[in-house]
């Protein structure tokens, strides 16, 4: 599935300063792998040593927090937009 991924500023050094990249993935789990192939090192930045998404990183699929969906098993389809957002904001 071809999906668009919005990359936050702290990760843009790994994507040649691009704020948006295209990826092929059928789920968030697969997306993490395919992103890492395109931008080596990115998975280590958004996931901790046990492979879980860090507590200060939020993933959204078409504007919905994946914690309200199926977490990293959330399926992706063609044209979906995945947004990676630092959790520290607002208030």
């Amino acid at each position, binding site marked *: 599935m071809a999906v668009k991924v919005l990359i936050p500023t*702290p990760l843009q050094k790994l994507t040649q300063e691009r704020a948006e990249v295209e990826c092929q993935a059928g789920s968030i789990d697969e997306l993490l792998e395919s992103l890492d192939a395109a931008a080596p090192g990115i998975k280590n930045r958004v996931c901790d040593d046990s492979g879980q998404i860090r507590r200060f990183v939020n993933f959204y699929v078409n504007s919905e927090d994946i914690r309200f969906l199926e977490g990293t098993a959330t399926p992706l389809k063609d044209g979906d937009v995945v947004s990676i957002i630092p959790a520290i904001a607002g208030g």
Partner: protein
Amino acid sequence: MVLATAPTTSPRAAFTHLRCKECGAEYEPKATHVCELCFGPLEVAYDYAAIRERVSRDSIRQGPHSIWRYKDFLPVTTATPIDLGTGLTPLIRAERLGRRLGLKNLYLKNDAVNMPTLSFKDRVVSVALTRAQELGFTTVGCASTGNLANSTAAIAAHAGLECCVFIPADLEAGKVLGTLIYRPTVMAVKGNYDQVNRLCSEVANTHGWGFVNINLRPYYSEGSKTLGYEVVEQLGWRLPDHIVAPLASGSLFTKIHKGFREFVEVGLVEDRPVRCSGAQAQGCSPIAQAFAEHRDFVTPVKPNTIAKSIAIGNPADGVYALDQARKTGGSIDMATDAEIVAGIQLLAETEGIFTETAGGTTIAVLQKLAAAGRIDPEEVTVAYITGNGLKTQEAVQGYVGEPFTIEPQLDSFARALERSHTLERLEWQTIPV
């Protein structure tokens, strides 16, 4: 942008750099809010030895009648910060409310009358926009539940900054009008605050604007420390025993405590334990739920409460607020919408302060904690009232009765007065004294 070594201290300002609260990585004090390595929040670091040398109780007393009397503890370098008289709001001894709740030493920190826009947000925005100017921004913005939009728009107008604010589309009318009047661009987003917040993070990523609570957040949040400093000064240079404050993102709660600790660190006040308790609305209580379930993580929720100003389902500083309540021996509790309205009414009737829903939540939780014995009656307790009731009139409409409409004649007045006495007697039968 990670520094190999810590930057040198500016000759005028005591703040030195930004430091990740999680992994300790250090950064230059630019417009950035999260650690590039672990995404932890960045916090402003200070040279406390330098502050200790230059600050005394006298030097503070002789400072401006605003938050800027504490400028040495705030992350700005300019000699002329934006000052609309923000801060130094009244600390009131609440004897009548205290008697009602069984608390002998209850105080209210009344930011319902903060300047210029009647909420504590004027503190954080004054700091954020002063820093925004120092960093060269000409356009500023925010993701807001209402009070922040009022404050950002007003203070940006005063400072001559372009302003674009984002709010949930269903905000109270007073908060929308109280933003529009300053002529910012207002984006009313069809969604809840957490969606507004996410959108703003995406905009901040691409537009080069200074968002007070996103890329300027490390500076912005420091403004809340002044709520700690002022209470210490107004109590006669002593720490309170217990504070109760509303919890939305959790930032205010943690920064009040940071303010207390800094005053101890530089020798302005004698150390003593301060218990920190937090208040949430039941319809948006992710931190209170985590506290009740003894969890060390906060699970996001979808807000559904009249307390819109604190309706953040995905609180950025939730884990830090949890930790602080537990470590200090405080509590985190929640109030239903009906209890929030009753809290607003109780504060108004006993102390003459009309607060908004966040203040109603704080009073309702204060009442619960007192009833449950979680606040010692002798403790010097400070409840933080963070916003003004005139902005959220919808919340109490229908609960406050109607005026007696009368003819301009004595007998019409006499009949109405008789009727009012009858109604009063009926109310006395239902209200426990």
